[in-house]
């Protein structure tokens, strides 16, 4: 059976992408806001729950502290997940493009 977090939700996707560089929780939210051009704005409980969930599955891990805040970074396993999702999404994108070609013919 598929992993229960797959396919990745928009929230999980953005968090994993943001954590390719080490960041603390609030900075993750800020980075996602700019990455998504303001369209994805995570709330506190959602961010906390997602960080919990992702680190429970070993896709991200704490790598240090900045004051009281914990800093996280994606793990190798997490990067593998992103790679898989990238392939899945590029396939879907290629289907979109095929559709365009057919319409032109």
């Amino acid at each position, binding site marked *: 059976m598929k992993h229960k977090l797959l396919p990745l*939700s*928009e*929230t*999980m996707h953005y968090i994993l992408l943001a954590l390719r560089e080490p960041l603390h*929780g*609030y900075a993750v*939210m800020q980075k996602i806001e700019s990455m998504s051009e303001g369209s994805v*704005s*995570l*709330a*506190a*409980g*959602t*961010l*906390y*729950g*997602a*960080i919990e969930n992702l680190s429970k599955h070993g896709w991200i891990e704490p790598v240090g502290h900045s004051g*009281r*805040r*914990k800093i996280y970074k994606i793990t190798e396993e997490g990067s593998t997940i992103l790679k898989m999702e990238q392939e899945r999404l590029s396939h879907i994108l290629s289907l979109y493009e095929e559709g365009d070609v057919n319409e032109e013919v």
Partner: protein
Amino acid sequence: MKKFNVFINIEKEEQWLNEQLQKGYRCTHINSLGLYTFEKTDQKYVMRLDYQEYLPKEKREEYIGIYEDFGWNYIKGSGLGIRYWQKEDDGQNEIFSDRQSQGNYYKRLMNYSLWFGMLCLVFSFMIYKDTRLYHAGLWDMNGALFWKALIFETPFVLLKLLPILMVGIFAGSYYKAYVKYSMLREKG
């Protein structure tokens, strides 16, 4: 202003609290017996209730830290696991921003109702196992004496019925949370 209230349903409690805040108050203290303290304010505040079971110290600090970064104020964490959050109304007043986390919240509320409902059920069995609701001799009494005794005993009977009543209320909240949980999951 101090107000006393008792809630079993967490969502109802949140709704009631926000009704108080809309009248121009902010919450400053909540005690475990159901005494809520408010103070008058010119600002608009909102409250959100989360439910998290026991969090070890480190987790708890992280949990509170993240919420505080978002501008939430930790009013209180009850021993039952309810977390009371308050913040100035700035348009970003939700603590959950996607379906997955909102669904997980209802899942936690289901667990909450389940455990406390079970606890009340066990308690009910312990009470009802070897006692009758009314005193056995009551039914042998006649006329005015019977009525007097009945009226005297009834409040105690209602008190004895409280645990099973609570089981019913918890079952109701469980069902409500379940309906919301499954609606979120279907659409997700």
